[in-house]
């Protein structure tokens, strides 16, 4: 048809032709990207060769030549088995509990397992945005769980509450007894609940807050009863006996969770208009960023006790946790400050103009936007922290890698491939942890930045 002819009579018939070259799917990929020019053909073969030289030995070592059963080093020696030996997995099997729990006593391991399980039960719903009740869930995980985990993992009980602590503070004698304990508990409950109601603006407005407070104490009482905290609690397991993955998780999760509020407070302080506060925060951040983590850990472990008065001691692990939280907090502070600077000034002005106070403006408008900007950098530092926790080795805490190195020393398992097997195993554990964090942060980014998609 040409021009404005509206009538048409076909004069020649169109013969069937061959379909055009496929450009989609795997075959299409081969044609259009991998083998479409001499250079690309050469690159394709070079890459394939590289892939083969990496993958083939890895698979051979990890799976094909690997030894799966055995009770000591003889199973993993090439001259005993008569074939080349790859990974010596029986070594991992033999040392597995040690790698997970360290020297945590055998009969108490259920406590570590229970802590792991509780953490998983509390974290999983927190990570899935659809599940409701986030505030309660977060309160349970971030506030209640650390205490519970402390008494579960470390053991020991409580002697009393507010009055006991006051008595301690003023050096008064306090003979622990069950009646005194529960009397102290009830009085503390009553005082705190009354204070909460008063703070929330009297009986009219504060009733619900008071109820939450009373319910919280009821929950605490339940935990005390279950774990017998009023009667000495579970047998003490000194933190020096903790080890392996348990220590890695305790240190890294505490570090990640505790460094966030530290970082936020420092970042806000550094951007504050109050000079003294700003100077303090700058000094704090620069100090902690300026010293190596190893120095921090070393000071926390060996120097701090020298400065503390007499019989006042803090657990070695707790000192390390505080050190790591402050160290990571200083790093986070700078990341978060970057996010704060990326929020336009007009946002704060608009919120101010609506009558929102500094804290409400910060909490509802500025921080939510700032933190969204810096999710990738924050996760970056969390991943770094997760792997840096292994530095606790230098203060004699045996994390996963520390425990692994201890296992290498065992002559029963001294074979040429033990070292590689061990590092491969721990490498996989670290990789899974880091990869999971990375994927979750991508998911979170996409979800929280829904408003940027137009």
């Amino acid at each position: 048809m040409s021009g404005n002819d509206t009538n048409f009579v076909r004069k020649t018939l169109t013969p069937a032709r061959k379909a055009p070259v496929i450009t989609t799917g795997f075959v299409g990929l081969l044609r259009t990207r991998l083998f479409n020019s001499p250079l690309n053909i050469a690159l394709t073969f070079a890459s394939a060769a590289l892939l083969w030289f990496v993958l083939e030995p890895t698979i051979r070592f990890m799976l094909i030549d690997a030894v799966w059963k055995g009770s000591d080093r003889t199973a993993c020696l090439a001259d005993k088995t008569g074939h080349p030996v790859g990974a010596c997995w029986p070594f991992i099997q033999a040392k597995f509990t040690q790698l997970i729990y360290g020297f945590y006593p055998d009969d108490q391991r259920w406590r570590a397992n229970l802590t792991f399980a509780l953490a998983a039960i509390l974290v999983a719903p927190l990570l899935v945005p659809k599940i409701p009740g986030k505030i309660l869930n977060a309160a349970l995980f971030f506030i209640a769980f650390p205490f519970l985990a402390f008494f579960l993992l470390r053991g020991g009980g409580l002697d009393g509450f507010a009055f006991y602590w006051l008595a301690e503070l003023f050096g008064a004698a306090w003979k622990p007894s069950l009646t005194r304990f529960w009397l102290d508990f009830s009085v503390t409950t009553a005082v705190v609940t009354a204070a909460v109601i008063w703070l929330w603006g009297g009986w009219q407005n504060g009733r619900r807050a008071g109820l939450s407070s009373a319910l919280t104490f009821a929950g605490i009482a339940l935990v005390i009863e279950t774990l017998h905290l009023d009667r000495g609690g579970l047998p003490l397991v000194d933190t020096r006996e903790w080890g392996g993955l348990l220590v890695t998780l305790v240190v890294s999760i505490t570090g990640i969770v505790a460094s966030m509020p530290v970082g936020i407070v420092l970042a806000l302080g550094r951007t504050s208009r109050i000079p003294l506060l700003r100077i303090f925060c700058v000094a704090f951040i620069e100090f902690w960023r300026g010293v190596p983590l190893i120095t921090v850990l070393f000071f926390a472990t060996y120097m701090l006790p020298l400065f503390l008065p007499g019989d006042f001691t803090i657990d070695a692990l707790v000192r390390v946790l505080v050190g790591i939280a402050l160290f990571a907090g200083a790093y986070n502070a700078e990341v978060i400050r970057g996010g704060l600077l990326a929020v336009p000034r007009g946002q704060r002005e608009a919120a101010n103009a609506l009558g929102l106070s500094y804290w409400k403006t910060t909490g509802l408008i500025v921080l939510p936007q700032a933190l969204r900007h810096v999710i990738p950098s924050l996760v970056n530092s969390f991943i770094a922290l997760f792997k840096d926790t292994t530095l606790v080795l230098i203060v004699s805490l045996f994390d996963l890698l520390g425990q692994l190195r201890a296992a290498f020393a065992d002559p029963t398992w001294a074979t040429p491939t033990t070292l590689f097997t061990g590092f491969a195993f721990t490498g996989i554990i670290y990789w899974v942890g880091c990869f999971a964090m990375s994927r979750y942060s991508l998911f979170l980014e996409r979800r929280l930045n829904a408003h940027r998609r137009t």
Partner: protein
Amino acid sequence: MTTDPIIRVERLNKWFGDFHVLRDVDLAVARKERIVVCGPSGSGKSTLIRCINALEEFQEGRIVVDGIELGPNLKRVDDVRREIGMVFQSFNLFPHLTVLENCTLAPIWVRNVPKKDAEASAMKYLERVRIPEQANKYPGQISGGQQQRVAIARALTMNPKVMLFDEPTSALDPEMVKEVLDTIVDLANDGMTMIVVTHEMGFAREVANRVVFMDAGQVIEVNTPEEFFGHPKHERTKLFLSQILR
């Protein structure tokens, strides 16, 4: 008109560093009065209305809003801001909140209004600016004109006695200017006290009770729109008008 001023600005002086940006500014705004402030850029118009809302500090003089004095140290900032709604040139909607959440945030968190009531009243204001159907979208998903109308609704949810507009149409595409100006005219017809910084002279003529002309940080001329546009008195005013009304 100035018998019962809701806003009194007296001998206001402000410096940005060494730069004297507001010089002895006096202004009284009566209830239900509509003031348009115009002038060349850098003349201090925006700074003036930002001082009234305490978004800027000032060094000398005093500002009294509805009997609340805002001294140079901005002590009663929150009390004053509760009386005043503000609309910005760049909208400044909260991008991470939906349109509805933008409008309920302040009532919920400043006035402790229950969420349901806040949403109902926010919808009322969104209807008033004629975009209730956009309530669940994010600011980034609607046009500039719609965003500015949401910003107006957001300010109205706090029941302000005075509305300040800081060049509300300057950041808009030409075809969206009218929808925003219409909204402001509606508001004016309902008797809202307002101070509008704008270059829209047609709007000034239509809506203003008085036009304030500023240059170099000073009030040069204050007059009714008829007089201001018809018989400008000051040389500077004549020059300004000749440049913008061609």
